[in-house]
């Protein structure tokens, strides 16, 4: 995992430093770092522990929450036993980060068919990893629309008989509606 990271200045482009998905005990489900701020494995774990304990007692269930420490802003949201975090430098636009977090949580919900919990997430870890891969590329925001993200991931679902190989979810829904309309017209 020895990627070479480049920290882009805030001037040129909003940058995400990491995306974390932890369980209710702070253990990793899936994480991805885009910054050299934490090089050693231990440094990453220390950051995760710190962000987990700092946010543990907050109620980040209905609305995304935010905190700032050690020069970072972290936006986060909890769903069942899963804790979603997106981190950036403290000069970043909070609302841009919030849109990344929203893209993350909602696309995961779509992919897990609303069964957003640790066990399902682990059982479908491939989808979660692909999902993170579609949201941010090397720190640069790739996509924030949950439907587009889920659509791009779902085209790759392992199932051999993928029903909509090149379609996004919204397109798939549109075809579904067409089918439905025709059957009603009969």
């Amino acid at each position, binding site marked *: 995992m020895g990627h070479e990271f480049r920290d882009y200045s805030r001037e040129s482009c909003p940058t995400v430093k990491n995306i974390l998905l932890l369980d209710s005990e702070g253990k990793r489900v899936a994480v991805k770092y885009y910054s050299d701020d934490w090089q050693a494995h231990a440094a*990453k774990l220390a950051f995760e522990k710190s962000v987990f304990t700092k946010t543990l007692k907050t109620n980040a269930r209905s609305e995304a929450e935010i905190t700032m420490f050690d020069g970072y802003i972290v936006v986060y949201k909890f769903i069942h036993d899963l804790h979603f975090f997106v981190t950036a430098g403290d000069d970043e636009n909070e609302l841009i980060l919030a849109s990344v977090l929203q893209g993350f949580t909602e696309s995961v919900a779509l992919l897990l068919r609303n069964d957003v919990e640790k*066990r399902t997430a682990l059982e*479908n870890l491939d989808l979660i990893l*692909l999902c993170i891969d579609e949201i941010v590329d090397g720190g640069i925001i790739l996509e924030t629309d949950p439907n587009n993200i889920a659509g791009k991931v779902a085209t790759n679902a392992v199932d051999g008989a993928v029903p909509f*190989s090149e379609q996004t979810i919204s397109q798939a829904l549109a075809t579904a509606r067409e089918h439905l309309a025709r059957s009603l017209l009969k």
Partner: protein
Amino acid sequence: MAQPMLKKDDDRDDEVDYHPFFGIEKGAVLQEARVFNDPQIDPRRCSQVITKVLYILNQGDTLTQIEGTEVFFSVTKLFQSKDPGLRRMMYLMIKELSPSAGEVIMVTSSLMKDMNSKTDMYRANAIRVLSRIIDGTILAQIERYLKQAIVDKNPVVASAALVSGIHLLQTSPEVVKRWSNEVQEAVQSRASLVQFHALALLYQIRQHDRLAVTKLVTSLTKGSVRSPLAQCLLIRYASQVIRESGANQAGERPHFDYLESCLRHKAEMVILEAARAITELSGVTSRELTPAITVLQLFLSSSKPVLRFAAVRTLNKVAMTHPLAVTNCNIDMESLISDSNRSIATLAITTLLKTGNESSVDRLMKQITNFMADIADEFKIVVVDAIRSLCLKFPLKYRSLMNFLSNILREEGGFEYKKAIVDSIVTLIRDIPEAKEIGLFHLCEFIEDCEFTYLSTQILHLMGNEGPRTSDPSKYIRYVYNRVILENATVRAAAVSTLAKFGALVDSLKPRIFVLLRRCLFDSDDEVRDRATLYLKVLGGEAVVGETEKETNEFLFGSFDIPLVNLEASLKNYEPSETPFDISSVPREVRSQPLAEKKAAGKKPTGPAGPTSGPVVSAIDAYEKSLSSIPEFAAFGKLFKSSAPVELTEAETEYAVSVVKHIYDGHVILQFNCSNTIPEQLLENVTVLIDASEAEDFAEVYTKPLRSLPYDSPGQTFVAFEKPDGVPAVGKFSNILKFIVKEVDPASGEVEEDGVEDEYQLEELEVTYADYMLKVPVSNFRNAWEGMDPESERVDEYGLGARESLAEAVNAVISILGMHPCEGTEVVANNSRSHTCLLSGVFIGNVKVLVRLSFGISGPKEVAMKLAVRSDDPDVSDRIHEIVASG
């Protein structure tokens, strides 16, 4: 879509700890990875194994190089499979493995094929993978495809190419810069994210070309940008253009209308970006601020915590420079004190403390008291700091603020928090005379039940200094003596010293103090007993130190101004003998950290003999030793100071010369470290010819030539000057290196008989006032300041004209005076409008000097400075002013 990864085991189903990857082990998974090599690829099984490997990597485990290579090669076999899901997992795997250059070649052709596939998903991902792993040569091969991809009608493909371009720009800028036309076309894309990525890349391609950036901003702000993310970028670029055109203050700012129009955008992230950009404009006026503050105020009452946080954070920053502009939001802000998000609450509180007026202080304090109980220590510290500055702003309110501080001091809290409170109270005691007694009283109460030895000793020390000067010193004795009875040895020893100070300074208390000190003679700790014995003997008159009472007190309680490191070093060097250790022999100069000498490649080090080659730490001793060994210099007395070496030649010249200035009471020795970098030459009889016509007070008395200077073997020549005794004479010297040069055959080393006289122009050299000042720290600046005769104080104000920044002005004054900055006051906080800097030093003639500098900066960067000097000798105080006035 949500396919279970592994077969569920019904028995485990009910267990709480069921985990699909339970007991997973790297070795076993790598065994499983052999399925990749099967002739009949099972896509489902292979995807599962890849997921397992990714899981292991994600948990922080790593593959050895051999394991990595093995997995990589088997994964590449999977390109035979047409299964799109498996292909996608392969892409992920290849990126995670970050293959070596040799391995990359194995997959390049497969990935290039995918890049030209009919399937958009393949194309987009193959581009992203390739751009992550390739080097410049392969980039040249695929450049054509990437350029096409940028303008691809599929937005996913275009975005993949553009983002790859942003990454590649760092490594191969010259290639990516050729894509300018395509990127420009993509900026006009209808797809929102393509526009965003294209704009980001276009800006990065052009960012060093100011004119191009200005053009870009001017054309795009007219309204062709639809994507909110792209709009945020454009706001950043526009404010940069504004910043760079900042020089012409007159008239309207360019693009301000654009920023203002973004405040009405429908996306909140754009509104926030614009509002923040406006508040950060340099020299922003309140008229410009108003619309931005208005939208931020609306955000304050949003239901979304992120929005409230963003707004209050921005307003908090504005409050530092434009508190009045924010006062309109105070009511909304007050309701945020009870916000469940403590970051928001803390920011609201500190903003209110900055913007509040005198009449609102009491009400605010009541609200904060409720709030303090349930926030973390790190937030509490922020609040305490804000309260301290509030108190300094409204000194009349000290009573309620001091009360607040003493209340929170009594509550639970960690060391850092308690320290912040104690520091605040100490600051208030210092700066608000009325608050002194009440503050001391609160601190007395605190040490009755203080678990932190460090804080107890600090407070006891403060009480010893301040207590005897209060209206009723006797009431503190009880608190101090309680420490002697109840505390650990460190605190007991501090308490004994404090008692002794009361005894020494308040005659009426002396008999009572003696009784208490005598009890301490039976203490179980020897430091406590030693201190008690010393104080009893000296204060009781049994042992005599100095002639007057003042000298006695100076001996007992004076500040210890010798750097402890130096003392330690001297003590280590001391060998037991008839002569007792003499503390005055300990050097007072603070030695800078040993700096590794920076030598440009090819430039030879000045060699073992040159003092510059060793670490700076040993420099002064080495100088003293080597100089006193030269008979002509032995009579000059004690070396006062040696400067750091100053280069008199450019790097990479034929002869490298640097100079060290050695200052004595009545002499200055210039030591020239010379080095010859030409193998074909031998220099003989090297001297430096000095023209001192611009240094009137100096008279050359002696020159010590350097007999021979062979290649790569440095040596020194000295020139000594006489100057009036104890006077800090300054002047400029121009220097010429004179020598006889002889040809050398580098192969045989043979030297020709006849030499030619030659000379070499060196740069000018200056002796400045800073050369007569030793950087000597004091442990407690305030005590040292107050310990000096107020009569010696000289105060004056100076204008420093327009400076780059406050920090630059502060550093300039520090380096002119050559003094030691105390208590970290050389650091100027960002954006601060004023700064106080404390300096200490010893001036030639062993005159202790302390300086208080107060700086202020006005809008157009005009800096003004107030300089207050105290010293052992009022004439020296005047001299410091002369230095500044002439510097």
